[in-house]
């Protein structure tokens, strides 16, 4: 392996605290024929990168392996490093000895596994080919989905930058949830004064086309060249766009009567319904809502629909502040207010004095504890049965009305929308961002940005900030005519292709067409600009004519061989998709969830890359167990349907294994999302137990 440089990272104590990095270096130098094998305290730091570049120049290195953290973190960084030294950036491999080794294992087993991971990486690295990025022309238009305050802000921002925008809104008019919020925050202009001009601007803006009462039915294409099918009142239409901004917002929680039976009582309403009472038409001469004219005491119950241990253990962020705002409005009319809460949660520094302090000064009573029951009383009011935490006592409070401070939930049509947009959901059901700290405005799908509360509960100000931010991200895409895309795509070997068309049928992006070649034979042909590099074609092809340039079959087989070189029968070979399952394994590492060491993870772009022959190969090399893990169907797959394509092959895999004399129960597959570290841990533990007890499953 001349011309290969191996760099083993200490990552401070993250790796070096568990693994004897120097000993590892010596073993790698012995076992492999790498020209250079070095260690570094932080490979990703400037001196670390400099050393790699210097070695490339000095030793004439042609390929580089970095054994450090997850490639999901730093593959781009190191590709750039070697590119700066004149190498093709695709001649890089990373061995994950941190998230998938030092953070979850200990002792000599961790040490052995680290060596295996490096040898596996070298096996792939030797078989990679230099690749070129693709240049894709950009449609310099934007599509904004959702016409609430977020969608409006994003659309106006882009339109002001000179980008033509199509704004799609499902309901008959623009405005979204913000239209329903009538009670003003003290000392602040009403929300409608902010919202109405936005709506008018959008309608009158020369570069915005508003499509009301329209839904997004389908999205095809890829970043720079999306094509959206929209169904409007006058029929379907298609819009082209280079970037999508999703601003579909949230839904207020509707109290589930099985959990909140009292919500059906006439004296009980939600915070949203209270806002409606304050609408223009419902007020008397004195300004008080007519429905509250003879009301003396109103109780607020917090956390309705939120922080529920079993069903929805998430906080909806806004409800405490909304209650305080509403309480102040009621106090202004002389109505007594009691707030029954668990915590009082504010999220903006000014709210402490302006809302909470002021509410207390104006006589709002606060009770911390647990609700026991609510019942109607003979006089038409309510009795609240409450356990008070301070007094450590059960108490009864007679009130006239009860307002349930309902939380924010993802929209009920979120699932179908996610399918159309190919977006994953977080644990709380809202849209999943590319990274919670550093990329909150981007989704995992390139070119699709998240604006506002569709990504998680936000108030209007935060929504506007996020939407304008998302527009800024989209603009960075749309201000250029051409986009540079990854070179890791599929390729078809014309000689091996028999023209069966399986790949074309299975490609989630319709990126493969069958064409007649010079001899009149039907051959598959990849539309390189449309290819997303999932590898489903390669997994499906019966003759192995279709292959993946970044994860070629020979490379995957070589990785399997390296993984199973030693004590194969004790090993669990896990093919994990880059976007979900591999990230889930990383998540287990980040959370330090220890699991048995015999598992060896082979990263693939998508579970759809896995063909029956590859699984067979692993068993032929003696693997104790083989598992494949991908994204949860139907909607989580980064490549739309790669996971279900793989699933459809499972019966054939089992049949093939049986035919060749292997127990099909030694093969299993799972769906693991990027946040499911614990699940990954459980699965590996079960499989390892099975290995030990001899029990196949």
């Amino acid at each position, binding site marked *: 392996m001349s011309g290969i440089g191996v760099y083993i990272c200490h*990552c*401070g*104590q*993250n790796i070096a*605290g568990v693994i004897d990095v120097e000993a590892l270096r010596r073993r790698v130098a012995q076992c492999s024929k790498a020209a250079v094998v070095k260690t570094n*305290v*932080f490979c990703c730091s*400037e*001196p670390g990168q400099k050393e790699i570049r210097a070695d490339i120049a000095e030793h004439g290195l042609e390929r580089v392996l970095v054994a450090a*953290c997850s490639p999901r973190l730093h593959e781009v*960084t190191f590709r750039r490093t070697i590119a700066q030294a004149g190498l093709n950036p695709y001649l890089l491999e990373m061995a994950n000895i941190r998230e998938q080794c030092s953070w979850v294992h200990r002792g000599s087993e961790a040490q052995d596994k680290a060596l295996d991971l490096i040898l596996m990486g070298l096996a792939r690295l030797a078989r990679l080919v230099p690749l070129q990025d693709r240049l894709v022309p950009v449609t310099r238009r934007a599509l904004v989905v959702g016409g609430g305050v977020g969608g409006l*802000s994003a659309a106006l*921002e882009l339109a002001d*930058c000179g980008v033509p925008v199509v704004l799609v809104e499902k309901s008959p008019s623009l405005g979204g949830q913000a239209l329903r919020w009538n009670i003003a925050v003290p000392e*602040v*202009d*009403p*929300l409608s*004064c*902010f919202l*109405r*001009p936005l709506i*008018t*601007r959008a309608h*009158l*803006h020369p570069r915005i086309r508003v499509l009301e009462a329209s839904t997004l039915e389908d999205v095809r294409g890829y970043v720079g060249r999306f094509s959206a099918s929209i169904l409007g009142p006058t029929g379907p239409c298609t819009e082209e766009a280079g970037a999508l901004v999703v601003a579909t917002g949230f839904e207020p929680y509707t109290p589930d009567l099985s959990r909140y039976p009292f919500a059906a009582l006439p004296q009980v309403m939600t915070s949203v319904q209270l806002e409606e009472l304050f609408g223009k038409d419902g007020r008397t001469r004195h300004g008080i809502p007519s429905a509250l004219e003879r009301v003396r005491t109103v109780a607020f119950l917090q956390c309705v629909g939120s922080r529920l241990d079993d069903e929805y253990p998430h*906080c909806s962020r806004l409800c405490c502040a909304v209650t305080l705002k509403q309480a102040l409005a009621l106090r202004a009319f002389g109505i007594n207010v009691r707030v029954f809460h668990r*915590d009082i*949660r*504010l*999220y903006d*520094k*000014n709210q*402490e*004095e302006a809302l909470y302090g002021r509410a207390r000064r104006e006589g709002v009573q606060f009770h911390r504890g647990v609700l026991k029951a609510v019942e109607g009383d003979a006089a038409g009011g309510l009795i609240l049965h409450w356990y008070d*935490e301070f*007094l450590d006592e059960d108490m009864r409070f007679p009130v006239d009305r009860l307002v349930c401070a309902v939380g924010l939930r993802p929209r009920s049509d979120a699932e179908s929308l996610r399918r159309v947009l190919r977006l994953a959901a977080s*644990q709380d059901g*809202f849209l999943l961002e590319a990274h*919670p*700290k*550093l990329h*909150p*405005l981007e989704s995992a799908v390139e070119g699709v940005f998240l604006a506002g509360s569709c*990504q998680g*509960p936000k108030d*209007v*100000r*935060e929504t*506007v*900030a*996020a939407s*304008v*931010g998302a527009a*800024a*991200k989209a603009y*960075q895409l749309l201000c250029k005519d051409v986009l540079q895309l990854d070179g890791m795509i599929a390729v078809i070997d014309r000689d091996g292709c028999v023209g069966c068309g399986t790949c074309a049928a299975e490609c989630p992006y319709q990126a493969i067409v069958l064409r007649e070649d010079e001899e009149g034979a039907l051959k598959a042909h990849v539309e390189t600009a449309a290819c997303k590099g999932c590898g489903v074609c390669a997994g499906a092809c019966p003759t192995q004519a279709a292959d993946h340039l970044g994860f070629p079959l020979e490379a995957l087989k070589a990785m399997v061989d390296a993984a199973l070189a030693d004590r194969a029968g004790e090993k669990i070979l896990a093919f994990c998709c880059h976007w979900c399952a591999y990230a889930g394994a990383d*998540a287990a590492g*980040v*959370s330090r969830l220890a699991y048995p060491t015999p598992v060896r993870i082979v990263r693939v772009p998508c579970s759809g890359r896995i063909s029956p022959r590859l699984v067979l190969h692993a068993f032929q090399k003696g693997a104790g167990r083989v598992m494949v893990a991908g994204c949860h169907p139907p909607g989580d797959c980064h490549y739309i349907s790669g996971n279900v394509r793989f699933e459809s092959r499972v019966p054939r895999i089992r049949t093939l294994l049986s035919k060749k004399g292997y127990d099909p129960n030694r093969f299993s597959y799972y769906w693991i999302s990027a946040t499911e570290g614990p699940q990954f841990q459980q699965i590996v533990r079960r499989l390892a137990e099975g290995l030990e007890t001899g029990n196949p499953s």
Partner: protein
Amino acid sequence: MTAAAHEAMTNQKNQSPTHGTRILLCRCPERHGWQDLDQTAEILAGAGISVRLVDALCERETFTKEMSKTALRDVERLVIGACSPFLIGDLLNQALHDQSDLRWTLVDLKDARNAVALSGILRSRLQALDPAFSKTCGVLSAGIPHGTLRPLGAKAPRRVLVVGGGVGGCQVALDLAGMGIPVTLVETEDSLGGNMARLDKTFPTLDCSICILGPRLVDAASHPLITVLASSRIKRISGRPGHFLVEIEHRPRYVDMDLCSGCGACSEVCPVIVPSAWNAGLRPRKAVGIVFEQAVPLRAAIQKDYCIECGLCEKACERKAIRLSEEPHVSRLHTAAIVLAEGARLFKASRLGSYGYGRFPEVLTNLEFERLVCATGPTQGALIAPSGSRPRSVAFIQCAGSRNRRFLPYCSITCCTASIKEAMLVLEHEPEAAVTIFFNDIRTTGKSFEGLFLRARERGVRFVKALPDRVERAKDGKRLSVHYRAASHPGTQTLEADLVVLAVGVEPPNADPRWVVRTPPRRDHYGFYEEAFYWGRQMHSTLPGIFLIGGCHGPRDITQTVTEASAAAAHVAKWLRRVSASPSKSSPP
């Protein structure tokens, strides 16, 4: 004042004052319904000025009707009395910017005490729109803050200054550079990274902080459109919106940045050992060296205060990069916009005398705890109390300084989740430790923060609703004793702890460059930079062209800061477009 101007101003027989003029007033009962517009209209009618009244100008139908080219066909001077320029200004600009024969201005109807005052304001604004009047007087009326500026001689420079090189500053710089806009990023410390670089892990995912931040810092420093000036502070900002002249003072590092390779040979030989300020004073460092392992730029610097000028570093440096006689120098920058990303400061825990910070070495702040458990910290990541032992009991005290009228009356937002995160880190190191968090409210409101809270409870972290009175030395003389009163329990209880972590709040940024401008950006009554308007202008300061992101305008976590950074980039780009466009004569002064 010239005679012509005087005449224009006092011209009683202003021929046909209503010819070509219009005053349009919007009632907007929700906002300024108390303003008696009918009376105003009457008073103005008495002066021969006609007034049009509408109910809601911003309503699409009304607006189209009143602002269309046909509707304003014969109007040369238009005074619109409506709401704030921050609410309706963009809409007016969008609709009227291409009507070149129209001169218009906006009056906020909240700005007058009563109808009489209002009518006076409207009249004078109408008069000021008279080209004869404004030309001779040369008066630039206050105008709408965001309106197009008076024509300037020089073209506005296409460059943005970002003050502060933390995660926010780097993000906004990268977003601006991504739009093709050149950026100068100024950072007072020797390295980029700010507070986020000092964290061990970030909530709620417990990602390694510097691992996710490091590449961003390298990206920012290596981007062709971004110039990083570390070890520099803003000395003075003068000029006016769109044309700021900034004086930047460069602190000497005593090392040639172009020659230094970051090898560390200088610090190996330096005989002077001092506390590392970057590590909150918990770890020693040499007087010369690189401030932390992943610093960007990765170059050495000498802490001259401690330097004894022995010259050993000079001899040890192979590249001859030491410059002991370097002087501070000042450079100047001409910039069209400035983004303030200086972050917030930590509240000084020693002000809370009863908690013993500064008296007991076992009392730390959140940030000091982060440095303690971080692999690059004083113990290389081992959780060892300053007393030298492994802690068996750790107590976190929330709201240390925050939500307290004597100190910081506001909530510092991030401390609850930060402490819960740190509690999880304690258990990672010491699975058997007893961890207690004393709190007022647990405010884990961000996405997935509640999940972290639940996980902490499941792992056995104890949450006690009580803010301790005081921390004292325990009877055994070794541990600490936390005295508190829980609401539902009579009397004072004590908890023995080996380590007490104070969740101190954040204060507004301190160093304020000398603003030599007409109206420096205002600070609110807490001292944070004030936002220009509640709706849609959170990232605008009160001075046009100066933008705010992150901790400098209120306590923020990383996600919020990064979001604001991208939004601010959009606002800055919009501002640049406006100040570099040639203003048309139709725009109001």
